[in-house]
Every structure is written in C-alpha cells, then in structure tokens.
C-alpha cells in the first residue's frame, strides 16, 4: 500500500500539439479511493495509463510510495488494473486468469491456489473457477477482473471504467460492493469514470479533468457546494446546475427581474473585478416554485417519485431561458402552468473566464 503522486506529469501523443494530460499535479493518500472524472477526451484514462506504465510520461514524474516509477515498465510498478472490457485471457479458466500474475511471479502452486480461492470467496466466484470467460455473464466477468486484481495484493488498484459494460441496475449494485471491498482491503485506488454520479458516490476525493487539465480535486461535498469554476459547476450534479449569463449592474446581478442577494465576498470581488458580465449558477434544489418571484411557463415536468424537476421558461435579458426547479414528489404543477420561481439557497457566481468569484 502506498501513496501515489503525479508531479507536473504530461503526456503528449506523437503527432499532436496539445497534451492529452497537461502538467497534472495530484497527491493520492494511502488507502484512498480517488476518482478521475471528466467528459470523453478529458485525459482521465490517459492519466491512469500513465500511472500504469502503459503510456509514456513525456514531462514530469509519477511516484508510487517513495519510488519514482516514471520510467519503470508496468510489471515493476506493483499495480493491478481492471480494464473497461475486463481484458480476461479468453483461453484460460477463471482460476488461471486470477492466478496468472502470481504464476509470473513464480509463486508456488499451492499458495497460488489458496490466494485464488480466497479472492473467489470474497467475490462469490468459487463455483465458476473452472469456467472459461466466455461462459460467464457480464457481471461475473467483471468480478473475475476484480479478482485478478485483488489476488495480487498490489500497492495500487487502477480501474478504467470497470462498471460501464454492466446494465444500469447491476452497475448501481456493483458500485456499492466495489466501494465496500476497497474500504475493507484498504488499497489505494485510482478509479476512472465518465459518470459523475459514480464519481460522487464512490470517491473519497474526486478529481475533475477537462482537456487534459485538472480542474479541481476535492471531497465530493466540497466539489458540489464550492465548484472552483463554471465547468465543474456544470459537470457535477444531476440535473445540472442552472447557469445563467447576466450583466453586472450597480444593484448587483439579477435573473430576469429577480435580484439576487450575494455573499459579501462575492460582492466585493465583483466590484474589484469590474466585470461587465458574469455567470450565475443555482442548483435546481436551491430554486423553488413560489407565489412571488420570476414568472414563467412550465414546459416539462419530470416526475421521479421522491422528487420532481420542473422546467420553467422565464424571460431573461429579453430572451426565453429555461430554469430547472426541484419540487416535491407529489407536485400538482403541470405543463402550461404559469408559476413563479424564487431563489431558496446558495448561489454561485463565476467570472467571464469561468473562475469562481468569492468563497
């Protein structure tokens, strides 16, 4: 078990000018589950593969524990990886798949079998040890891939979208099992996903990447309540935060006719910046339907049972704008209603370049 450290690590693919991963600095604690999340092309998988040794590190360095592994081949890094398509060895049985790495390390057969059985017990795979991967279901294959990783007792687990080939229900179930397993084993884990819900639910900390640049690495709650920029604000949270471009006036900022009371730190930052235009962000649960406030027409009502999301078209700067508002599960609002929207919680303000203003 060990810490992992990226120091100004960059990867520039041959023939490309723009780095796939650009000067990444990241410290991962011993036993931590860190999730790398971002849209496709954000460099999250590349960052993971740099740690695995499957991609070159063109600049900077990567450390596992005290060791600089920047130039080490994968087999010398003491890591185990779970691939998106599981990458099981098709010609080998489940047991042989799980014991393959130990066999390469010349672990005696008896000990090898013992460790494979133990991992199989943990993952509920004991009765499938003699099967070939093609005779397993998707969920079982996923568990074999996990088993192959845990049998090795490595310093670090690397997981590249390990749940994305499962169906939605199994994915949610496996997500919890995986997080639990990681906590029990206490092995430092780097987990890549494009699914922000997966990131938020599993990660001790979540690192958001965009275009190869690390945007923010924080605990899920901090990421949610204090996004450092417009991108993180829009990426984290489902449904997404309402992001409204608006002008700064002497009274502050407003959505349509609805004036916003701002945190003093934001107001002082606003005057100091003297920005003509800013972006205001409000999460759906921080808006409410009320008797007073900004009038608008309901266009869509998404009922989820425990809550519902009401899409309200309001007028802002003379143009229609859709705001998503969370409402109670048993809402009576329907399409076509005229409602009023009011702010009922914290707001976020981002400057023109996207960075957060104030605290």
């Amino acid at each position, binding site marked *: 078990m060990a810490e992992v450290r990226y120091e100004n690590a960059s990867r520039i693919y041959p023939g490309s000018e723009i780095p796939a991963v650009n000067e990444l600095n990241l410290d991962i604690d011993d036993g931590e589950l860190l999730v790398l999340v971002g849209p496709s092309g954000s460099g999250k998988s590349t960052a993971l593969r740099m740690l695995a040794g499957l991609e070159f590190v063109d600049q900077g360095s990567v450390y596992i524990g005290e060791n600089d592994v920047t130039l080490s081949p994968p087999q010398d890094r003491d*890591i185990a990886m779970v691939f*998106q*398509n599981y990458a099981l060895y098709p*010609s080998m049985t489940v047991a042989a798949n799980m014991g393959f790495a130990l066999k390469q390390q010349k672990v005696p057969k008896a000990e090898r079998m013992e460790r494979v059985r133990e991992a199989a017990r943990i993952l509920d795979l004991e009765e499938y040890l003699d099967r070939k991967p093609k005779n397993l279901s998707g969920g079982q294959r996923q568990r074999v891939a996990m088993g192959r990783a845990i049998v090795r007792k490595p310093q670090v687990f690397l997981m590249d979208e390990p749940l994305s080939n499962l169906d939605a229900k199994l994915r949610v179930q496996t997500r919890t099992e995986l997080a639990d397993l990681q906590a029990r084993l206490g092995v430092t884990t780097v987990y890549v996903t494009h699914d922000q819900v997966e990131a938020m639910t599993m990660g001790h900390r979540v690192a958001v990447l965009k275009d190869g640049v690390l945007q923010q690495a924080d605990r899920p709650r901090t990421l949610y309540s204090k996004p450092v920029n417009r991108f993180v604000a829009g990426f984290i949270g489902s449904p997404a935060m309402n992001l409204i471009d608006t002008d700064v006036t002497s009274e502050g900022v407003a959505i349509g006719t609805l004036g916003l009371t701002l945190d003093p730190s934001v107001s002082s930052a606003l005057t100091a910046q003297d920005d003509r235009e800013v972006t205001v962000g409000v999460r759906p649960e921080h808006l409410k339907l009320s008797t007073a406030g900004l009038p608008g027409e309901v266009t869509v009502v998404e009922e989820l049972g425990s809550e519902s999301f009401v899409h309200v078209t309001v007028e802002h700067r003379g143009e229609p704008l859709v705001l998503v508002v969370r409402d109670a599960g048993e809402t009576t609002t329907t399409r076509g209603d005229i409602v009023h929207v009011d702010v009922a919680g914290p707001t976020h303000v981002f400057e023109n370049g996207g960075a957060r203003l104030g605290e």
Partner: protein
Amino acid sequence: MAATASRSEAVKKLQRREAWRRRIPLLPALLFTIVVTQVPFLFSLWYSLTEWKIVPPEPRQFVGVDNYVDLFDSRFFREAVWTSILMTVFAVLLSVILGTLIALLLDRKFFGQGFVRTLLITPFLIMPVVAGLVWKNQMYSATFGVFNWVIEGLGFDRIEFVSRWPLWSIVIVLVWQWTPFMMLIILAGLQGQSASVLEAARVDGASPRATFFQITLPHLRPYLELGVLLGSIYLIQVFDHVAVITGGGPGSTNVPYFVFQRSIGGGWQFGLASAYSIVVVVASIIIATFGLRVLSGLLEGEDPA
C-alpha cells in the same frame, strides 16, 4: 375447426413458397456443379471398377474391386502415398512456422508496412507452373541458377539441386508459395486479439515470451488449425510443381503425379488411374471434413471476453 385447419394449410403453403423462393436462385449453380464435378466423378467411379487400356486399344472390362486390390499391393503406389505425406507435412509445417514468424513481425507498425506486406504476399499469387519454372531455371539450375552463382562465388563446386534433393527442391518452392497464405491467416488472428488483453498481461508482469506462449498462441490456435487444414487440402493435390521441377524424379512422385503417369502420362491404364484418384478424393474429403468443422468453430468465434 374448419377455419383453423384451412388457416394452417394456408401457412404451410406460404412456407413452401418461401422455401422455393430461396432455392430457385441456387439451382443454376447447383446444376452446374453437378455437371462439372459429380457427373465426372461418377464416371471415374465406374472406370475404377473396369480394366480399360487405350494403347493398345482393348474393350473395357468390368473387374470389380480388382483395381483397388492391385493399388494397395503396388509398391509404387505406396511410395507415392508416402511421398505425398512427406511433401504435404513438411510444406505445411514449414510454411505455418515461417508464416507465423513473419506475421508476428508484420503485426507491429513500421514505415512501409503496406508495401512490405504486398511484396510478401506476391509468391502466393503466382501460378504454380510459373513458380516451378522460375525456381527450376533461375534458382536451382546448375548452369544459370542464382544459388549456384552464390555457391561458386564463395568458391565451392556447383550443385545439381534438383537431382540431388528432388523432394526438398519441391518442398522449398511449396513453402515459398504457401508461407504468404499462412501469414495472412495468422495476421488476421493476431489483429483480432484485443489490445487490452496484451496490456493486462504486461501489468500482470508477463514477459514477452510468456505472453506469446500463454496468451497469444492459445488465441491463435484455431487460426493455426485452419491454416494447417486448408494447406493440407491444397498441398495433397500438388501436381504442377512436381511435373515442372523434377518430372517425378526419384522420390518426388506424389499420388496426383502418379495418377497422371498411369493414365494420360503414358501408362494408359485408365481404370487403375481412376481407382487412384478415387482414393485421393476420399482422403481429401476426410481432411476437408475436419477442416470445415474447424472453420465453423472459428466463425462462431470466441466471445470477446
């Protein structure tokens, strides 16, 4: 009840019509195949049960299975069978091994890959007779041959390759022609291997050697089997190379050439020759059956796990 009965009648009629709609376009091809392969085969089968000499002309006589009995008694036939086996086994094995090695080299990216691949495939595209002539006259020949030019340049005596090693002279040309075929099959297999499986092996600490023998080779197994079986089916029928290079010289007469010698090649014993060819057909069918089974197993495919 009457309504349901007529309904099921109607469904049956529709199914029959649908079945014929599928069959009709296949009929011309089927007829053609029967005319050019099955009818001559039946004639051969009939001839093989007769004694039929043309020079000097004699009336055709039905002799039952005598030809088959003679054939298995004949030392020359047994020698021809043995030559066929040696020729096929050596040519197939060597070309599979060479083809695998070349495919492994071609599977990595390098400058001019497409060009090199095209050059490597060329021998397979050359007509067997032409290949035989080229090798006989330009490579092996004691007078004009490239080999002897090199050997002489190195200060050794000229060697009559073809008369000294008749079987090997043919096997080498067969290997030269069939290596590209094997290479193509193996290359397809290699490119069908998932890149992440190889990456998983690297992360698991497997050496390149271990990766090849424990992961790549098992993955290639059906492709190797296919190559061996298709190669065997074709190479057991080799005629051109034998005719052109050695003309059936010592130890190089395989069964097809032997059949030729006994019939239109001068023996004029059509009944006996037909019996030989029937034996070859039966042997080929046995090999082909295995081949097709492997092929269909391959098409079902391994599940991308």
